[in-house]
């Protein structure tokens, strides 16, 4: 094998690494490692500047291996591999070392030790890189069909977008009709358009579209496979059916928190949530005279720290609608902060004040109190400007609560093998760079399944997810990782240990020159490496994670020399 010529790019990641790991010192150290012919540091290796530094260094120093020591391969490997490829280097000759997520960010109080750890991790990476081999990828066809989970406004938007691009779509909704949360909403901010008009038109479009097959009262019971070729089992009221799709979009939404036990909710019949108010306004209209709304109920509190974003506007909207329909009514809106971002929302908020909605700011330390007997009669709240408690009489109290993750998120996360955040929402691969993608190829997410969004945001995300899903479907094939296992037929004794071990049935014993040897199908193998760990003869080569490569990492850590 040709002599390894390794180039190492150590990233500051702005202050994320640079403030805790002594990057210049690390670079000096790395320069002394065997086979390292070039080492440099970049403020952001993933920036255009950093990428062109890699592309420039490859020919300049005749690099045949590249290492980036920065964040995590889960989000950035693709980018750096692409840079190598563009400079003519096989992408499997790239090695990633994580010195941010698993070093600088978790040892912020021990910069000395973080620096040592970074050096050792890179040393291990260099040891592996020295042995890396180029690999070629095979092409696997992608079924031009998408499974969209969730038939609310977001799922519908994704489905329509893909269908209009000519792809087949299976739209799965667990309820008996399409529309999701919007079915319960009265009017939409900031246009005050009827929700039913908007969602009704979209549902009609879905119904009319020949490319969309809608599955109502249906759950996705099981899903397996990989990008291009997923097998899904649908359960429609106990009746099972099977589907093959190339991509999956998760648009399952979220649900409103029912704040049992807070502010008399569940005890007083006239304490309701915003969504319940909407349902009432939609069905029978609303003619309350004295209305108090309380925002941030169950949101931005220690047990649920996040802001649900759109609910301030929901409260402002409903308060304004009440004033509009009954100008003599008194409507108070008790809030902590008020999220009225952007051009429309700030105007909308201002208009509500002009219409006479009164805003009172409260603090977490001095929560409003709902007082009543059989029903809510008064709300007492500390008025910061007046410096005293004020008492408001009420006919109705409306609690503004956040969206919370759906109960079946956990089940779906297990089924699709995609992660949830600590709060229980679905977690994208990268907040900024891959906001609508999971780390698992071929599965995308959008809308409130990911984080509470309003309709405009949710629909934008739906289009983004659809655009992402369309890429492999339009191309027609994917090149899965060439990280597959291979049998060294000379070493193989034909014992057959490996055959039953493979979860994908990629291994088959075949006759070869009168003896039996194991054969692994490259197209079927997913590269888990389980067979490699099982083979007693050491005959299985797990590409890119070969025994020699892993052992070299181990030895590098403990060898005294560089």
């Amino acid at each position, binding site marked *: 094998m040709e002599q390894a010529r390794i180039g190492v790019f150590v990233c500051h990641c702005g202050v994320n690494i640079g403030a805790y790991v002594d990057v210049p010192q690390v670079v000096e150290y790395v320069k002394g490692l065997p086979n390292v012919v070039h080492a440099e540091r970049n403020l952001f290796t993933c920036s255009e500047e950093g990428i062109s530094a890699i592309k420039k260094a490859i020919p300049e120093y005749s690099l045949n291996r590249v290492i980036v020591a920065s964040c995590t391969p889960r989000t950035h490997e693709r980018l750096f591999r692409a840079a190598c490829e563009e400079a003519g280097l096989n992408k499997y000759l790239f090695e990633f070392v994580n010195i941010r997520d698993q070093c600088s960010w978790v040892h912020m109080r021990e910069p000395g030790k973080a620096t040592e750890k970074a050096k050792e991790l890179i040393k291990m990476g260099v040891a592996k890189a020295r042995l890396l081999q180029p690999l070629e990828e095979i092409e696997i066809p992608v079924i031009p069909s998408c499974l969209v989970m969730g038939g609310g406004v977001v799922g519908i938007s994704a489905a329509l977008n893909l269908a209009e691009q000519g792809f087949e779509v299976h739209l799965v909704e667990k309820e008996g009709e399409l529309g999701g949360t919007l079915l319960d909403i009265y009017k939409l901010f900031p246009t005050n358009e009827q929700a039913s008009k908007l969602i009704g038109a979209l549902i009609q479009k879905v119904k009319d579209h020949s490319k969309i097959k809608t599955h109502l009262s249906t759950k996705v019971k099981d899903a397996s496979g990989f990008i291009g070729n997923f097998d899904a089992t649908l359960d429609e009221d106990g009746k099972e059916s099977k589907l093959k799709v190339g991509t999956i979009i998760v648009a399952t939404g979220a649900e409103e928190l029912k704040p049992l036990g807070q502010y008399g909710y569940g005890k007083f019949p006239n304490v309701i949530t915003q969504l319940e108010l909407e349902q009432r306004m939609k069905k029978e209209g609303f003619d309350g005279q004295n209305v108090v709304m309380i925002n941030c109920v169950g949101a931005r509190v220690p047990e649920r720290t996040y802001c649900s974003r759109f609910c301030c506007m929901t409260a402002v909207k409903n308060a304004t609608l009440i004033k509009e329909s009954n100008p003599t009514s008194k409507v108070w809106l008790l809030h902590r902060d008020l999220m009225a971002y952007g051009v429309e929302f700030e105007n909308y908020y201002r208009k509500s004040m002009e219409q006479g909605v009164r805003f009172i700011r409260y603090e977490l330390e001095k929560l409003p109190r709902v007082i009543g007997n059989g029903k809510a009669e008064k709300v007492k709240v500390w008025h910061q400007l007046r410096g005293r408690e004020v008492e408001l009489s009420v006919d109705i109290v409306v609690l503004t609560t956040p969206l919370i993750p759906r109960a079946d998120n956990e089940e779906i996360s297990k089924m699709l*093998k995609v992660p949830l955040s600590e709060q229980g929402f679905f977690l994208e691969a990268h907040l900024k760079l891959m906001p609508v993608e999971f780390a698992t190829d071929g599965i995308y997410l959008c809308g409130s399944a990911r984080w509470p969004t309003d309709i405009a945001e949710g629909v934008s995300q739906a289009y983004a997810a659809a655009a992402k899903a369309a890429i492999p479907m339009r191309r027609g094939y994917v090149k899965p990782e060439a990280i597959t296992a291979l049998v060294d037929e000379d070493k193989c004794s034909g014992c057959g240990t490996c055959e039953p071990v493979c979860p994908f049935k990629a291994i088959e014993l075949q006759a070869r020159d009168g003896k039996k040897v194991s054969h692994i199908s490259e197209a079927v193998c997913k590269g888990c490496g389980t067979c490699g760990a099982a083979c007693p003869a050491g005959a299985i080569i797990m590409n890119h994670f070969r*025994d020699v490569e*892993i052992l070299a990492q181990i030895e590098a850590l403990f060898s005294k020399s560089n």
Partner: protein
Amino acid sequence: MEEFEPKIIAFLCNWCSYAGADLAGTSRIQYAPNVRVIRVMCSGRVDPTFVIKALRAGADGVLIGGCHFGDCHYMEGNYKTARRVALLKKMLGQLGIEEERVWLEWISAAEGSHFAQVINDITAKVKELGPFARQNNS
């Protein structure tokens, strides 16, 4: 004397435990700096001989991190790991090596704090056991 700072090698599967370690990072959870991670695609890749070689080369402890049962990206790699590690531990016991030096833990991509806890726990345990005395410690 300086306090004993053990060196621990962690084999983490790409899909769950490595992602859990990343989440500990994005959540800025601080934990002991004694662990060096080797990424593998699945915990099923971890050949028991890697663990033995790590101990022989100088590691004071070894962690294998995989997905919870039912979550393995390759369906059942982690069942195989569980079986292998159980056998390995038995063997270590027979060789007179404390089996608490080798840990198998299931850590999901959402369990950043659990990951940090495991690292702190294994570090504390291995500190308590002391440096691993290698027979052929040349």
